[in-house]
């Protein structure tokens, strides 16, 4: 018995319809994958799993690397110049065959335009019909890396600041406590000495109390001053080194005259970018320090200048005073550190100078051959324009 002809035709129609639906669905699916491939905001490479050669590359990667489709098609990943020396084709293929998956966290690449970027590179091996293909996703992580780096940097800066704050608190609390101990102890003595009416001792007790109270007042002033640096910031301006020198010299003119110091200013030229008032204070403190520690020098001299040292410009204040034993040079910039306990002041000048220089991103240091050899204080301010010319022909600093 033959089946009914009309039934056969119906069945054939039904199949054709089914096939047409399937084919439509297939092309719809293909289209959507194609769109995904073409609009993806990650680079995608499709490789032949046998040879590792590029079959297809999506527009995003073309844009990212700056190479055309033609530049890349048919090449292995290792042959593509951005990946040269980074991905060895054979090694990648073997690992993919074994593990089905490779991930490079952090590949540094260079684009056609020479821009350096960092990418995350993930390869997957999978079966597509009767063939195996490799799909590589390439994500530009330069921005993330830049942020990570910035975060690292600021975390380090924060740690540094924290340590500085801790040292500051330690020094401040210890140094403030000492005169308080003095005041309270000598008040006790004063009571005893008043009871026994010992006029000589009473006068001495009062003297110790007064000196300690003065010191507390001075320490508090200095602490306030050093806390202002960095908290109250004048907007940075471009200022000539010579101008700063003139201002600083005017501020210490009294001391210079009193000590009979001959000051020479080198003819080096440079402009500094920063907080003008504070930068003048750096020089002022260095000059003040030089005047204070002239020792027995009969012909006291101070030389101020700037000069190129290597790639940077260094500013200097040199004196022919008492000098500093090399063993103690690291200590002179410490808060309330004094090499000579009998010297005037609390020992804040050089710490203040150091703080200002460091807030400008610069460095400050001292060089001295030793006691009686004079000293030279140097500092740098990174935003210095104009190379400092040597102060005099052939002079070394």
């Amino acid at each position, binding site marked *: 018995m033959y089946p009914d002809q009309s039934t056969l035709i119906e069945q054939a129609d039904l199949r054709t319809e089914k096939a047409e639906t399937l084919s439509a669905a297939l092309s719809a699916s293909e289209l959507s994958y194609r769109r995904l491939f073409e609009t993806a905001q990650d680079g995608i490479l499709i490789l032949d799993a046998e040879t590792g050669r590029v079959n297809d590359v999506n527009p995003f990667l073309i844009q990212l690397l700056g190479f055309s489709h033609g530049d890349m098609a048919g090449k292995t990943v290792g042959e593509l110049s951005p990946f040269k020396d980074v991905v060895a084709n054979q090694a990648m293929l073997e690992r993919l065959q074994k593990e089905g998956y490779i991930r490079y966290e952090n590949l540094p690449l260079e684009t056609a335009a020479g821009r350096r970027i960092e990418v995350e590179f993930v390869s997957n091996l999978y079966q597509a019909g009767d063939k195996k293909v490799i799909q590589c996703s390439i994500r530009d992580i330069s921005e993330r890396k830049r942020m990570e780096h910035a975060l690292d940097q600021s975390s380090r800066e924060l740690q540094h600041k924290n340590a500085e704050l801790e040292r500051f608190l330690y020094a401040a609390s210890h*140094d403030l406590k*000492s*005169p308080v*101990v003095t005041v309270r102890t000598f008040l*006790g003595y004063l009571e005893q000495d008043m009871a026994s009416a010992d006029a000589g001792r009473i006068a001495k007790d009062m003297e110790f109390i007064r000196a300690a109270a003065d010191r507390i007042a001075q320490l508090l002033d200095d602490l306030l001053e050093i806390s202002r640096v960095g908290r109250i910031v004048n907007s940075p301006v471009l200022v000539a080194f010579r101008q700063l020198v003139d201002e600083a010299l005017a501020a210490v003119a009294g001391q210079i005259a009193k000590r009979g110091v001959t000051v020479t200013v080198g003819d080096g030229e440079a402009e500094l970018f920063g907080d003008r008032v504070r930068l003048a204070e750096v020089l002022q403190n260095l000059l003040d320090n030089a005047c204070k520690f002239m020792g027995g020098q009969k012909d006291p001299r101070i030389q101020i200048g700037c000069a190129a040292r290597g790639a940077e410009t260094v500013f200097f204040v040199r004196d022919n005073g008492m000098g500093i034993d090399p063993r103690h040079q690291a*200590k002179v910039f410490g808060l309330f550190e004094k090499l*000579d*306990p009998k010297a005037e002041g609390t020992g804040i000048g050089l710490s203040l100078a150091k703080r200002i220089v460091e807030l400008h991103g610069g460095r400050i240091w001292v060089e001295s051959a030793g006691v009686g050899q004079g000293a030279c204080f140097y500092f740098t301010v990174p935003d210095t324009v104009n190379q400092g010319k040597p102060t005099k022909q052939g002079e070394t600093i």
Partner: protein
Amino acid sequence: MNGEPIVILLVEDDLSHAEIVRRNFEKFRVANRLIHVTDGQAALDYLNQRNGYGDPATSPQPGVILLDLRLPKVDGLEVLKTIKADPKLKAIPVVILTTSKAEIDMVKAYAFHANSYLVKPVDFTQFTELMQACGYYWLAWNQRPNLTPTQAPV
């Protein structure tokens, strides 16, 4: 009690604190001598008998050292470390006398073999009592050998 006079080396940059120690030790002074230096470098020079401290008659080795921590030139902890690393000096008892109650200072001081750690009290009566007790302990009660470590038979 040991009748031998003891030389005390006081390393203190604060002149008023040195005066407090001096006043408190006055009663022990009949037999003992207080020598005062104001920075860490001078302390090391004194102990090593150099730079003006060369004469053992005027700069005798101390029987006890009272050492402040925050000192000009060479820090107290550095002075302590140097003393305790020196075979000729390490047997001398070093008493830290400081305003610092900081844990890190105490840890370091004992790690460098300080023999005692005293914190200067912010109170007249307490400071006086502390100095009296310290004086009795180190100058009267504490026993010292007559021989130096290098003279002692092995």
